[in-house]
């Protein structure tokens, strides 16, 4: 097994991909922990999979489609959707601004 040492830059890059902001002590902790896991999962490289097909699911179902029409039973009215929220304005959920100016 090859020793894996993720750097602080690696962790910051992964955190960015993950949409996570990390505190300094978290960076240190995840550096160690993720390095050890990645070292462990590298053991799959021992297996020859050249002639093996990938499995992304195991049901063997394909092309499960539904009729293209509105199903009232699986839709909520805006009143139902908003019924339990603490933060709404008229017919909308009210959230913090994402784009400013």
């Amino acid at each position, binding site marked *: 097994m090859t020793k894996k040492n993720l750097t602080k830059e690696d962790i910051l890059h992964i955190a960015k991909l993950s949409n996570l*902001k990390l505190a300094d002590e978290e960076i240190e902790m995840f550096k160690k922990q*993720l390095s050890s*896991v990645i070292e462990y999962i590298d*053991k*799959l*490289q021992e297996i020859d999979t050249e002639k093996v097909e990938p*499995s992304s699911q195991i049901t063997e179902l394909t092309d499960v489609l*539904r009729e293209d029409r509105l199903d009232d039973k699986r839709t909520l009215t805006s009143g139902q959707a908003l019924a339990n929220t603490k933060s709404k304005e008229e017919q909308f959920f009210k959230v*913090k601004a994402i784009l400013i100016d």
Partner: protein
Amino acid sequence: MDLLGLTIKDVSEKLQAGVFSCRELVEECFVNIKRNDKKINAFLTLNEKEAFKKANEYDDLIKSNKEIFNKKPLLGIPIAVKDLYTTKDLRTTAGSKIIGDYYPPFDATVVKKLVNAGVIIIGKTNADAWGHGSSGENTDYEPTRNPYDLSRVPGGSSSGSGAAVAYGAALVGTGTDTGSSVRLPAGYCNLVGLKPTYGRVSRYGVIAMASSFDTIGHITRTVYDNAKVLEVTAGLDTYDSTTVPEKVSQYTKILGQNIKGLKIGLPKEYFVKELDNKVNNSIKDSLKILEKLGATIKEISLPHTNYAMAAYYILVPSEISSNLSRYDGVRYGQTREHFGAEAKRRIMLGSYTLSSGYYDAYYLKATKVRTLIKQDFENVFDKVDVLVAPTSSDVSFRHFFVSGQLGRYTGIKCSKRICRRSSGWDADNRPAIFRRVAL
């Protein structure tokens, strides 16, 4: 009344005969909860008012129509629902603080089916946040304790459901099983846990961990009760396109039949030297009983077992990183810094294994290893009818802290269970060790 001694079968018969009422049954649940749950922390939310309302309604129904049990096979059965299950107007947190005040506007398909079958929801149970864990310690709330020994974990991630059934707060606990989360709490709390075959039970409305692995199971006191609940939860759901259009059998009718000639396989890779002697001996004792009943036992091999854990630790975090990306602080609850350390670790690991330059080496490779693991199982099921293996290599362990050590998951303890997960086969966990192993 001693609810701890009752099964679904007993309760149905006694409700029909008028020995006690739904109301008395629900009262007993809440007496037990009030006496114990401050110490055990099985519940995150109680549904007391609604539960009594339902109980009264059902008591009236039983009085006016004794045939109602044919229509509602679980009438009056108190149930504890894992907090990953979406429940209409009842708080649903997934054990996480991110959605700590989420009151969903709809029910999961399974919840709807159970409610239509007559269950009474007692409350929502504690769990490792988002289902990430095997002890219950990764909850964002107070961790659940094992009712048999408060210094031990109840097993996770369906920790509260296992504990609730064990101490008599409900007769059924619902769970989700991605890598052992029903089987472990069932095993550690001396109960019967079922991880159904993937596609058998709808995932719609159950908060997703890893969508191609998640299965919707449950924990009960007896095998009969477990089969009875599956008769209600199983089946095709047009809201979950991964459910299979296969007929739902009357599983309870299959029980108790002659097993003469049944071929049992023992996967040799699961009986490792780390296996606790007490666990091993109790399995051997159970096998002797099965042999006496006419089954034949044969050692078989699942050669890729040793790689299952590594494949799991690529595929599952990859799916987690995608599923948890929706919790962005805009559409749901709190912002992402409120994720616990375990969720952050898994999201980051998944983002890494899916990222540009690493996808082929990790994710694609693991999907191919998954094929090999699946083939291992297909090959042995040509030779044997069922497999018998330990749920875990030991009994419940003692530590109450969130370790944050990923190394912990790479031990033998998890890898055997996870092997069964990657392949999609079901696994029925029965408490073979109850009498033998004092916790």
